[in-house]
């Protein structure tokens, strides 16, 4: 009994500490970033992926580079301030935004109903298609065929959510910290299939043609939006105007041409849930 009491006492102590920290967090003033505040501060803090080329990768100097980075630079230019590119990962994207480490997420962030409860999305600025990728030799035609298959996904990604929703009970879903690690699991043969986008498929077929990968199931057509804190409505409105402007003046098409080798066709509409 004394053992139980001792555990209880220590646990309560830890919870009290956690409560004090939470109270401190809760009582801090709400920090809404507006275009004016960003201009006054003198820089735009943008969170973006660095493990998801060509949307988010790194250049020869190990600096963030890609479609998202170019859009971030254009947005900072529109605000008239320099940009600071802050690398984030799939799982920590939302925490970085909600804890004020960044002003905006431009991180190949799919617009979903679940995420909309947490953040404020801009209109889409890019899109991609999410698939279950597997070797041609593997027979996958319906979600039921996934049961004996081991699948890798990036944790907290839209493909994680989508596969979790359709895969039958007992499907082995291996979650990794990012797409690069999930992809490595596929390449090294630790998994048989992967939840990934058309950009990953293109990269796979270019670098590992011997794997004979093809899309088996189309999970969703994904519209990507910039994400803001719920209170940052002014910044989100600025972003919507900015996206419309760069689509109209051809700058976004030039970014698409640079990273995907084709001009931008048309941005998808804002999804409704």
């Amino acid at each position: 009994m004394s053992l139980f009491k001792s555990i209880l006492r220590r646990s309560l102590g830890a919870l009290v500490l956690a409560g004090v920290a939470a109270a401190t967090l809760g009582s801090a003033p709400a920090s809404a970033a507006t275009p004016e505040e960003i201009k006054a501060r003198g820089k735009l803090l943008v969170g973006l992926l660095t493990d998801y080329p060509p949307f988010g990768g790194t250049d020869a100097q190990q600096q963030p580079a890609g479609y998202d980075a170019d859009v971030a630079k254009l947005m900072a230019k529109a605000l008239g301030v320099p940009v600071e590119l802050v690398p984030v990962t799939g799982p920590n994207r939302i925490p970085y935004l909600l804890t004020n480490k960044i002003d905006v997420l431009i991180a190949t962030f799919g617009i979903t109903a679940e995420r909309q409860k947490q953040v404020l999305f801009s209109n889409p600025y890019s899109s991609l298609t999410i698939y279950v990728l597997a070797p041609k030799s593997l027979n996958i035609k319906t979600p039921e065929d996934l049961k004996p298959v081991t699948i890798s996904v990036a944790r907290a990604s839209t493909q994680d959510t989508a596969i979790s929703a359709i895969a039958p009970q007992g499907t082995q879903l291996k979650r990794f910290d990012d797409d690069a690690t999930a992809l490595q699991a596929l390449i090294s043969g630790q998994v048989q299939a992967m939840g990934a986008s058309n950009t990953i498929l293109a990269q796979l077929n270019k670098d590992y043609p011997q794997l004979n990968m093809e899309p088996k199931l189309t999970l969703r057509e994904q519209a990507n939006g910039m994400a803001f804190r719920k209170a940052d409505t002014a910044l989100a409105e600025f972003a919507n105007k900015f996206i419309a402007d760069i689509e109209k003046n051809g700058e976004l098409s030039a970014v698409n041409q640079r990273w995907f080798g084709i001009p931008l066709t048309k941005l998808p509409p804002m999804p409704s849930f």
Partner: protein
Amino acid sequence: MNYKLDFTPVLDGLPSLLIACLGTFALALGGMVLAIIIGIGGVMLRDSRIAPVRWFIKSFVEVIRNTPFLVQIYFIYFALPLAGLRLDPTPTAIIALGINGGAYAIEIIRGGVQSIGKGQIEAGLALGLHKAQVFRLIVLKPALRAIFPSLTSQFVLLTLTTSIASAISAYELTSVAQQIETSSFRSFEVYGVVTVFYLVISWLMMRFFGMISTRYFSYPVK
């Protein structure tokens, strides 16, 4: 920052977290057993008359102690399959933990062994004991008594290191916590509760090793 606490997702996921604790214990226990085997075996081989064996053990200890655990676990999980050795996440984690803990155990046990007087070993041999009996009865048991607190700390650290196994999707407390966090976005609440879980796990480990110490190493020193 106006953050409103909501523990509902954590409470909903509590059964999963409790079951995941068993996964953490399983990884830790497997790693510890392997670490002890490597530790004792390594100490015996470290002073081998065969030079390459000595060099191998010394190199093994240096390489493992001077590289990050994450790199080691990634090497076993991602690199070895390319050489034809494919292991699932759980065995990978146990082997990685065992190898990592074993390298530290070799050095800890070696320190204990060196604290045993040469005269005691010679006395044992003079009494007609085999070398293996001398090692087991005269060297190892008193050495383990001397180094048990250090070994306990190392094994508690090993238990906490199991959290890194989530990087290869092994089933344990941190990976389940990450799953709850990524579906609820309640980072503070999830990791706050998981912190308490790890505190309890560490404390239980300390108590467990304390009981072993009382049971096997509390005889008086003459």
